[in-house]
């Protein structure tokens, strides 16, 4: 029986349900020390003096001078120090590391730091520190705008968002084999491997990174584990003992990355009958104090900024700038939720300006196979923007409810959106990911660097391999990646783990099948010993991208979706309650329908939080509500009933037609909800749409 398309038991379910799965804080090594990070308390300035006011017996202490390699967090730019030398650019910047056997002694250790404070900058519109800018140009926007019958302008704002994975960041570094092994809660073992190599100045083979079971990531464990792993490794190598460094919730929220706040401006020209003729879009993202992943977040944000629409004249100017808050970074959606919030609320306002049905406006303009995106990419036969829209409209009774809700305290709104699968542009080619299969006495073992972070990686990969080899799912073994024995499959990000890594595994399987003939791999193993097949990513044919002009095929393919939100507003308090949600999402092929529905439901809930309640309160550059009683995310009681419809229009790029599903679900809920609020007559252009903000909008419109 084929495994793909069925709800096989998760590979990791027994351990997780019975509580035997081991997370990093469950691990104890002999002679282990605990570590603590001393951080800056000011947003900008210079360190004048660091005084250790405690008895140093039994302590290992490290500052920037102890960094044996280069004092940088190796990522895109090398601008961020692992440990501040003199200059402070944000609150919670690491300055000093302490380790001690006893946690209480460690906590009591007092360090006094004198600063020479400098004027911080928090407003991205006033920043002169450019982290990255890019321009996407198609046609001639100015001329098209000048000739447009109607021009609609608007500015849209989104705030920070915290990933709030259940397990905070944490690692253990163990000195061994003349180098160091880091065990940790992380998404991208090979990112950490590279960062360690540079920070420690050690050769590749002296560094080993092992993922421990990971309690969620949402992008928040894409780049940050490189920082914390380097810290622990430096301590471990100096102390010559294992070192455990685990953040508590406060530290994790205060110090680690969040979603980039954004300001997006639109100027759209349309004909009176609703055809888009020109889209002029300016995107500004607040990157925080260092570059981290801002250039790539900005890039994905910009490419998605015009939405899934056909328009001949598009100009997207995007900038990420620096401010004195902790750096922002990867978070599910990676820039696309920000820009698609803007374009989808803008579309609603255009419909309003034209007195046109919002679904009809989108129907007119939705990309069809053969149309080109803003970067000039011709979308293929798997472009189903129109189908998901029509299905969502019908399924939710959008038009009926739009009429029936008019004049009541209920509203209904929709959003049409898309999400590119895999790395942007030439990213996948540069990555050149590899994956491998190895025959075993049970069958076959998958060797990949992809991380299970709760989303179901191991299960989904095993399904693909089982069916590609024609063996039972149970005969496929999976495990936690360990850089010493798996190839680099690239990071577990960008909705690429199924389409890209799964695709490589599929090729490994057919190669293995050729080698072993009709035999079960187990049989082959018994007769001939282990056989390993390793394959590298092969760029799909006919895909071309130009990094300099931002023209071409930004992604191998896209997934398409339409969300419909129904909300109820309390007419006196302006509290919004989502009452029903319809999500029609085309992800090519659901390898595991339950896991796919879980991604859509979870992403939708996270998107509802983003839209309504998740607010990072920044006070003097520091998160003031850095705990779960104050930074609120929706509970099951705040999440509406969801009608999730999985559409499967196969892509020939992915295994069994699959595209990515991890990120797209978070792109749509915020604009759908804000558009539902707009249906109630309230002009909201900023999220989170808290009752306070809506009350203000109500005063203005009254």
């Amino acid at each position, binding site marked *: 029986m084929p495994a793909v398309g069925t709800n096989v038991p998760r590979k990791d379910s027994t351990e997780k349900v019975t509580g035997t799965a081991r997370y990093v804080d469950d691990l104890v090594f002999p002679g282990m020390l605990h570590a603590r990070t001393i951080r800056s308390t000011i947003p900008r300035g210079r360190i004048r003096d660091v005084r250790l006011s405690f008895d140093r017996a039994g302590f290992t202490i490290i500052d920037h001078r102890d960094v044996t390699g280069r004092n940088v967090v190796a990522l895109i730019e090398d601008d961020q120090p692992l440990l501040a030398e003199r200059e402070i650019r944000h609150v919670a910047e690491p300055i000093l590391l302490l380790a001690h056997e006893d946690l209480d002694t460690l906590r009591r250790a007092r360090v006094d730091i004198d600063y020479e404070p400098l004027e911080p900058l928090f407003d991205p519109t006033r920043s002169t520190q450019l982290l990255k800018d890019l321009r996407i140009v198609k046609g001639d926007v100015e001329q098209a705008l000048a000739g447009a019958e109607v021009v609609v302008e608007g500015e849209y704002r989104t705030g920070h968002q915290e990933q709030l994975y259940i397990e905070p960041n944490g690692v253990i570094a163990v000195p061994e084999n003349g180098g160091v092994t880091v065990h940790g809660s992380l998404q991208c073992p090979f990112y950490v491997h590279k960062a360690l190599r540079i920070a420690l100045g050690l050769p590749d083979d002296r560094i080993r990174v092992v993922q421990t079971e990971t309690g969620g990531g949402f992008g928040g464990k894409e780049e940050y584990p490189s920082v914390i792993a380097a810290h622990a490794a430096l301590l471990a190598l100096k102390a010559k003992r294992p070192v455990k460094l685990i953040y508590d919730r406060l530290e994790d929220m205060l110090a680690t990355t969040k979603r980039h706040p954004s300001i997006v401006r639109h100027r759209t020209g349309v004909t009176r009958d609703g055809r888009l003729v020109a889209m002029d879009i300016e995107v500004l993202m607040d990157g925080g104090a260092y570059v981290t992943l801002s250039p790539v977040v900005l890039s994905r944000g910009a490419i998605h900024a015009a939405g899934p629409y056909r328009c001949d004249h598009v100009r997207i100017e995007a900038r990420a700038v620096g401010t004195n808050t902790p750096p922002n970074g990867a978070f599910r959606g990676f820039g696309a939720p920000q820009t698609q919030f803007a374009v989808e609320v803008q579309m609603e306002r255009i419909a309003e300006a034209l007195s046109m049905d919002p679904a009809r406006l989108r129907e007119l303009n939705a990309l069809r196979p053969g149309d080109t995106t803003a970067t000039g990419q011709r979308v293929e036969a798997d472009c189903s923007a129109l189908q998901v829209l029509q299905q969502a409209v019908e399924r939710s009774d959008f038009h009926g409810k739009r009429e029936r809700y008019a004049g009541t305290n209920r509203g209904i709104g929709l959003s049409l959106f898309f999400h590119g699968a895999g790395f942007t542009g030439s990213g996948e080619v540069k990555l050149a990911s590899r994956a491998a299969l190895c025959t075993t006495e049970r069958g076959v073992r998958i060797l990949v660097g992809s991380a299970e972070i709760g989303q179901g990686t191991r299960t989904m990969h095993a399904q693909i391999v089982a069916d590609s080899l024609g063996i039972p799912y149970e005969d496929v073994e999976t495990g936690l990646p360990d850089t010493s024995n798996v190839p680099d499959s690239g990071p577990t990000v960008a909705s690429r783990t199924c389409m890209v890594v799964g695709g490589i595994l599929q090729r490994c399987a057919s190669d293995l099948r050729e080698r072993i003939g009709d035999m079960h791999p187990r049989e082959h193993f018994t007769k001939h010993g282990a056989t390993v097949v390793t394959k590298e990513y092969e760029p799909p044919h006919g895909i071309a991208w130009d990094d300099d002009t931002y023209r071409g095929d930004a992604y191998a393919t896209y997934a398409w979706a339409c969300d419909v939100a129904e909300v109820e507003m309390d007419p*006196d308090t302006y509290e919004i309650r989502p009452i029903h949600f319809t999500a029609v999402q085309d992800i090519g092929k659901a390898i595991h329908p339950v896991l796919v529905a879980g991604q859509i439901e979870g992403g939708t809930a996270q998107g509802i939080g983003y839209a309504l309640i998740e607010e990072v309160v920044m006070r003097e550059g520091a998160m*003031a509500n*850095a705990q779960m009683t*104050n930074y*609120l995310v*929706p*509970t099951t009681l705040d999440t509406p009933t969801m009608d999730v419809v999985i559409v499967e229009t196969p892509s020939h790029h992915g295994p069994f037609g699959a595209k990515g599903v991890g990120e797209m679900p978070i792109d749509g809920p915020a604009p759908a909800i804000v558009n539902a609020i707009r249906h109630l007559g309230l002009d909201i252009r900023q999220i989170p749409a808290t009752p306070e903000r809506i009350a203000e909008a109500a005063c203005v419109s009254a």
Partner: protein
Amino acid sequence: MLRLPRFTYHEPTTVGEAVRLFTEAMPDVAYVAGGTDLYPNMKRRQQTPATVIALHRIPELRAIAGTPESGMTIGACVTLTELAAHEAVRLRYPAVSHAAHVVSTPILRNMGTIGGNLLLDTRCNYYDQNYEWRKAINFCMKRDGEICWVAPSSPRCWAVQSSDGVPVAVALGADVTVTSVRGTRRLPAAGLYRNDGIQYLEKGPDELLVAYHLPPVRDGDWRATYRKLRRRDAFDFPVLGVAARVDFARDGSVSAARIVLGAVASYPQEISAAADAIIGTRLDEGAIGAAADAAYRPAKPMDNTDFTLAWRKEMVRVHVQRALQDIRAQNT
């Protein structure tokens, strides 16, 4: 992970033994019932008793006795889950049952007790933070520090009364019984609270809360309700609570009333002007509106909880109005 400090732990099985142990260990000692307030506070080093005396093994504190006609007595260690589900309480004291039901989450209600709920510590965004956070702002006067971050020139602490049960107890005119080696006394719940974020209780620390006494209720002679404002439908403490009790004369007019606001001050704030506005009326919209206005004016929330100040104050009007509308609806 936040960890508990070390402490000595006792599990007495009688009230007598509990108060004796407490007195012996004074002053650095605390009672614990469900521990859902005390233990998190200890983890954050807001409270650091050297001795903790657990009350959950004392059978006497776990009983519910009496009848609605004669009044009911709820043992202090009855859990919120038990209280919310108790049939007579649910049917005849719906405000009490509802206030217990809207506390936090099922898991917390399974542990948390009504006694702990009535004695819940006051809360503040500058205070309910872990030790490191508070240290970074140099603490505040509620613990370890000098000044108040909410009102820096103020000589007092403005931490907020944040229990759902408290405004209901006061509005109902319930009593409580407390006991210590010094003796036992029964007092109105209203007499238990002070408008001070630090010394928020009018009882000695050694006084053990034994019981919560609900007043008699006969068919329709009075009705009560509770309304809670918070951002989500689970977990969150009240950012505003409105409890109201309205007594009706035979002719259906209001003979007496008590309207109490939670989470706007350090104590449950009774607004007698709001009650006055409805006495003698039949809870018509005009009277309800006048009561809502009267409650709105003196309500002075401070900027130390969720939501913005202005909006919270505005919500007092809405919630008082709705509370009284609830009662009118119950009465018809």
